[in-house]
C-alpha cells in the first residue's frame, strides 16, 4: 500500500501496483470497453465500393491488430481497405510508389522528419475539416504540432510511443530488496544493490543503436532541459556543447561501471535485450531494460507477464524532472480522396484507438480515449503519463535529425554512440565524432 501511495504521488502517476487481482480487474474493464464499441463517437461518411489503401511498416502482431482497426473502418463505411506493407525507411518506399504513379491513399509515417519530407516533396495532402475537428477535440497542442509543417496540419498521430520507461524484473527487485528509483542517484544505487545481489543490473541493446540514442535523449532532456534539447535537435548548438559533455559523462558513469551492463551489449539486439531480462527465473542475465512501451510486445514473447513479472517505472529524473521523450506514427494522406480523409478522421477518433488499445502493446496520444480501454495497469500508466505530459513532450531527437545522422546503422550518431558504449570514458572523442557527423549531415539536408 505504501508503495502504491508513493507511486500515485508521482507527478507522472505511473501506477505499477499490479497484483493478480488488479490484473483481473483490468481485464474486466477491457471487456466493458469492448461492450461499448458499438457507441461510435465519430460519424463517418458512407463510402460503398470505394477503395482505400494504407501503407505502414508494421509487421507481425502489430500488423494483425492494425488490420483489425481497418476492418472496423470497412464495416462502418463500406469502403474496401487494403494494407500495403512497406519497408524501412518508408520514405524511400513511398518514393518508389509515387514515382510509379500509385501512392497509397494514406501512409503511416514514423518520424517527424518523414512528414516534413513528404510535405517538401509535395506528396502530403493537408488534413480536412472533419479530421481537424477530431484533432482539436482529442489531441493536445503538442501532439498536433508534431504533425504540422509550417502551420499547416498534415499528420494525425495514431500510435504513440513513450520512450522514457525502464522495465524491470520484479523478482530481481524483490530479491535485491529495492524499490523503483525516482532520481538518477537512486537509480545508480538501485543498480548497485541489484549488482550486489548477483544479478547484472542492466540490459542494453547496443547492436541497435536507436536504443542508445534514446538513452542519450532521455538523460539530455532531463538534465539540460527542453530548450537546449530543441536547439540540439536543430543543430543550433554544437555537439561539443558542455551540456552534451555533462550528459555523456552521466551516461558513461552507468555504461562504464564494471559489471553493470549485461555481456556483449554491442551484439545484443533489442528483442534479445528484453528477452534476457525476463527469462531465466530469478537469475536473468539482467534486471532492468530501458526502452519505450514496445518492450511489452517483446515481453509477450517470453513467459513473463506484464504487470506481475515485469513492471515499469518512468525514466529517473537526472535534472529537475523526469523526461518525456516520445515517438509516434502519424497517418498522412497522400491522395485527395474522400476515403483518405475519412480514414484520417477515423484515426483521430477514440474509436480507432480503442480497438488497438484493447489488444495491448499500444499507447494512444488521444486524450479522448478512456483509459479503461487499456488491458492492464502498466499500459494504462504509460498512457496516463503520456497524456499528462501534455505539451511538455519532446519528439525523439534522432528521428528529427537527417537520416544519415540519426538513422543509419554504422554511421553518424548511431556509430558514435556505439563506440561510446564500447569505451564510455571517451566523452570528448564521442562529442567530436558526433559533431563531425552532424556538421556533414545537417549541411547536406
Amino acid at each position, binding site marked *: 500500500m505504501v508503495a502504491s501511495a508513493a507511486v500515485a504521488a508521482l507527478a507522472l502517476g505511473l501506477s505499477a501496483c499490479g497484483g493478480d487481482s488488479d490484473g483481473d480487474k483490468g481485464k474486466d474493464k477491457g471487456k466493458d470497453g469492448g461492450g461499448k464499441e458499438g457507441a461510435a463517437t465519430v460519424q463517418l461518411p458512407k463510402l460503398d465500393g470505394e477503395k482505400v489503401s494504407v501503407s505502414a511498416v508494421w509487421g507481425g502482431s502489430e500488423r494483425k491488430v492494425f488490420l483489425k482497426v481497418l476492418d472496423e473502418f470497412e464495416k462502418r463505411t463500406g469502403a474496401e481497405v487494403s494494407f500495403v506493407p512497406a519497408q524501412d525507411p518508408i520514405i524511400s518506399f513511398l*518514393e518508389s510508389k509515387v514515382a510509379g504513379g500509385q501512392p497509397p491513399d494514406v501512409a503511416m509515417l514514423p518520424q517527424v522528419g518523414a512528414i516534413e519530407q513528404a510535405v517538401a516533396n509535395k506528396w502530403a495532402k493537408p488534413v480536412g475539416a472533419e479530421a481537424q475537428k477530431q484533432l482539436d477535440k482529442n489531441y493536445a497542442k503538442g501532439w498536433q504540432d508534431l504533425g504540422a509543417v509550417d502551420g499547416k496540419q498534415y499528420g494525425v498521430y495514431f500510435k504513440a510511443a513513450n520512450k522514457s520507461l525502464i522495465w524491470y524484473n520484479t523478482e530481481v527487485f524483490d530479491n535485491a530488496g529495492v524499490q523503483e528509483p525516482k532520481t538518477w542517484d537512486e537509480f545508480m544505487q538501485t543498480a548497485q544493490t541489484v549488482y550486489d*545481489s548477483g544479478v547484472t543490473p542492466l540490459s542494453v541493446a547496443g547492436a541497435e543503436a536507436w536504443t542508445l540514442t534514446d538513452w542519450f535523449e532521455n538523460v539530455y532532456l532531463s538534465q539540460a532541459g527542453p530548450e537546449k534539447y530543441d536547439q540540439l535537435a536543430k543543430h543550433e548548438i554544437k555537439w561539443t556543447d558542455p551540456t552534451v559533455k555533462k550528459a555523456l559523462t552521466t551516461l558513461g558513469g552507468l555504461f562504464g561501471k564494471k559489471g553493470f551492463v549485461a555481456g556483449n551489449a554491442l551484439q545484443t539486439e533489442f528483442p534479445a535485450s528484453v528477452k534476457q531480462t525476463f527469462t531465466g527465473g530469478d537469475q536473468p542475465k539482467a534486471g532492468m531494460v530501458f526502452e519505450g512501451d514496445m518492450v511489452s510486445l517483446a515481453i509477450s514473447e517470453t513467459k513473463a507477464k506484464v504487470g506481475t513479472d515485469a513492471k515499469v517505472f518512468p525514466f529517473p529524473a537526472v535534472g529537475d524532472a523526469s523526461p518525456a521523450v516520445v515517438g509516434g506514427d502519424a497517418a498522412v494522406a497522400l491522395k485527395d480522396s474522400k476515403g483518405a480523409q475519412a480514414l484520417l478522421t477515423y484515426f483521430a477518433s477514440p474509436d480507432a484507438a480503442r480497438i488497438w488499445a484493447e489488444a495491448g502493446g499500444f499507447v494512444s496520444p488521444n486524450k479522448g480515449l478512456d483509459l479503461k480501454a487499456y488491458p492492464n495497469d502498466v499500459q494504462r500508466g504509460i498512457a496516463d503519463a503520456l497524456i499528462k505530459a501534455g505539451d511538455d513532450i519532446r519528439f525523439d531527437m534522432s528521428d528529427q535529425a537527417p537520416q544519415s545522422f540519426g538513422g543509419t546503422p554504422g554511421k553518424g550518431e548511431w556509430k558514435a554512440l556505439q563506440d561510446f558504449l564500447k569505451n564510455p570514458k571517451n566523452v570528448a572523442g564521442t562529442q567530436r565524432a558526433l559533431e563531425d557527423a552532424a556538421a556533414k549531415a545537417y549541411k547536406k539536408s
Partner: protein
Amino acid sequence: MTTPAAGGTAAVPPAESTPHPTKTGPHRTGPRRSVTGTRKTIAALFLLPALVLLGALVLYPIGYSVGRSFFDKAGDFNGFDNYETMFSDDGIRTAVKNNAIWLVAAPALTTALGLIFAVLTERVRWGTAFKLIIFMPMVISMLAAGIIFRLVYESDPDRGVANALWVGVHDTFAESSGFPQGHPGARSPLQGAGGGAFITKNPVRAGEPVVLPLTGVPPDRMPDDAESARPARADPAKVTGTAWQDFTRGKGRGQVNAPDAAEFGYPGIKIEAVKDGKVVASTKAASDGTFTLPKEADGAQLRYPASNFREPYNGVDWLGPSLITPAIIGSYIWMWAGFAMVLIAAGLASVPRELLEAARVDGANEWQVFRRVTVPLLAPVLAVVVVTLMINVMKIFDLVFVIPPGSSKDESNVLAVQLYNSAFGDRDAGVASAIAVLLFLLVIPVMLFNMRRMRREAQR
C-alpha cells in the same frame, strides 16, 4: 582407370575441332553467304533480339551509371565530386580495403580447400557421399546461409555453435572459478588490489576474528555445499575469520559486514595472508565460510587472489569489429568450397593416370606426385575456379548484408553493400553510381584475364 582417360580424350577432340570450320569457313565460300549458308540480313534479324536485350539490359545501364556518376543527389552536374566523396568517405575506404581482403583471401582459401577435398575424396571409398555433403551448402541461398551463420557466430556459447565449441575446448584446459562477479560492497573492509584481487585495508591480528564480506556472486553459481555463514571463533594462537556473501535475498545487505544466518559462506574460496608483498600463508574457507590461518598471518593483510573471481570464458567475439570480415569469409568458404571441389574433381578425372603412375614408378612420394604432377596438370582448372570466385567475391553482398550486427556493420563494409546503402539509405544515386563504376573498373582486369584464357583454350 581407363574410363576417365577415355572419357577425357573423347571429350577433347570435338571441342577442339568445332572452331576450325568457322575460322576457315569465310575463305572457302562467297562473301555474301556464311558457313551455314544463311544470308547476312537473316543472320542479323536473328541476332537482333539478343542485341536489343543486351543493349537495353547491359550496355545502356552501364552507360547510364557512368553518366549518372557525374551528377549529384538532386541530378545537377557536379563533375568528379562523387568520386572525390567516394575516396574521402571513411565507410567507402573501409569497403575498398575489405574488398581487397576478400579478393585475396576468399578465392585462394576456397580453391585450396576445394583442391584438398577433391584429391582426398578421390581416394576414399565413400567419396561420392562425401562430395555430396560438401556440395550441399551450395544449394542454400546466400541469404539463408547468412542467417545460419549469424546464429553460428552468436557470442553467447549457449546459442552460437562456434563459441560453444571454442568454450568447450577452452574450459577443458582452464576452468572458470567458483565466484565470478564477487566484489566488495559499500563500506567494506576490503579494497581492490589490482588485477581483480581484493585485500583487507588493515593488517589482521591473531585472536580477533576477521570478516571478509563480498557481494555479487549469483546464487546459481554458488557452490552446492555452501551453508549459512557463521562468525569465526576467536583463537589467540591463530588468525580466524569468515568469508561469505554479505547479501540477504530480499533484504539487501542485512547486517553490514557481519554474517547473518540467511547469508551463505564461500566454501573453497582461497585466502592468502600477505606481508610485504609476500604470501606467508594461505587457506581455503569451510562450507560455512570460516577459515583459520596459522600464527604467521598475524600482522599480515588478507587477500582474495584474483583466481577466485575469474569470469567464465565467453569465447571469441566473432561478430565483433576485428573478426567480422574473417568470420564472414569463413561462411563464404563453407558455401563455395563444394563448388570448387566439384570443378576440380572433374578436372582431376581427366588427368592422365599414366603420368601419375610414371612419377610413382620413378620413386616420387605422394606429396611430390601431388605437388609436381597433379597440381601443374590441374593449373588450368584451378585458374578457372579462382577467376570465377574472384568475380563472385567482387560483388559479394548477401552475406555481408545479413551477418554483421549493427555495431560492426561499417567494419565489415564492402563495395556492393556500400553501393546499396548509398543508393537506398542515403538515396544518393550519384555516389552509388560512382561506386558502381569503380566496381566495374575493378572487374575489368579479371574479365580480360578470363577472356584471354578462354581464347587461348579455344586455340589449343
